[in-house]
């Protein structure tokens, strides 16, 4: 198994009203950027996954997006980047994982608001 870092982008679907994008659009205009035609706001989710291959990591992340990370009614998702972790020296010996493999997968909260 190898460790892969993935970047996932979740954005409001075309045609779905994006109130945050609208507010930012308005703010940019007020600041003089009148050439801005449209603003859409989404979220970036960074994952670290142990997987057999890049394809496997991508496939697993796709399932995660379909099941949890994006809501198909209102959001689209894109897996922007999949790269092997350069600091991950070995295959298979990572049962005994390092201290840095935990605790960072709730970054999706970064732009979750009080609701």
């Amino acid at each position, binding site marked *: 198994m190898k460790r892969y870092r993935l970047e996932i982008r979740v954005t*409001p679907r075309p045609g*779905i*009203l994006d*109130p*945050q994008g609208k*507010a930012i659009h308005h703010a940019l205009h007020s600041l003089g950027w009148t050439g801005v035609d449209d603003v859409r706001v989404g979220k970036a989710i960074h994952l670290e996954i142990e997987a057999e291959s890049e394809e496997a990591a991508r496939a697993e992340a796709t399932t995660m997006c379909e099941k*949890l*990370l994006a*809501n198909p*009614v*209102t959001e689209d998702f894109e897996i922007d980047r999949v790269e092997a972790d350069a600091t991950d020296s070995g295959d298979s010996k990572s049962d005994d994982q390092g201290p840095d493999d935990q605790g960072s997968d*709730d970054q*999706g*909260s970064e732009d*979750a*608001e*009080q*609701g």
Partner: protein
Amino acid sequence: MRVAVVTFPGSNCDYDLYQAVKQVGGNPEFRWHRDRGLDGIDAVMLSGGFSYGDYLRAGAIARFSPIMEDVVPFAETGGPVVGVCNGFQVLCEAGLLPGALIRNEGLRFQSEDCRMRVERTDTPFTNRYEQGQVIRVPLAHAEGNYRADDETLARLEGENLVLFRYVDADGEATPASNPNGSTANIAGILNERGNVMGMMPHPERAMESLLGSTDGVPLFESLVASLGGRAGADVVGAGR
């Protein structure tokens, strides 16, 4: 009549629901999100609040709570399920109701009384209201902006599955009476089978005239009555 009131981490209207059910003569009992088992339960209610801090999307994580593994089959076999506010968001995320609730159009957390028109009275949730009755109920949410694709919206309207609509004092669904930008002023919907209902406003906060409105009482009476309970028997002054 036994009603399970589900508490997720971050739920904050569960006691209100519990109290409302009790007030109309039902027998409420709490279920923690990690609990399993709905044997002998007649109805399930998912309360308002901020389950799991609303992280990712409101309701997105609660949907995978252990208790939901029982709530989904309960709903799919015809058991009555009500989701209020965050509970509505959870039901949409779980696929028990169509569509989704996104950020309010004005980006603000809205906390105010709203008026809603009761669009149907032949349901287990509204049989004690009058057809077209305008009721006043508090709402409190940041993500109550109901959205669905055109096909779903056409089906909701065509099959008469919109149960509550935001209206003005005259009962008209106007843009000004829409607090959050919801499509077609939708405040609450039913599933096709008619046993799952979700709504953004809080009927459980409209149970005492002292607190501003009793327009939520018939909703709980309706549920108890439809399940063969003795709704309305001891509403006044009950539940202290």
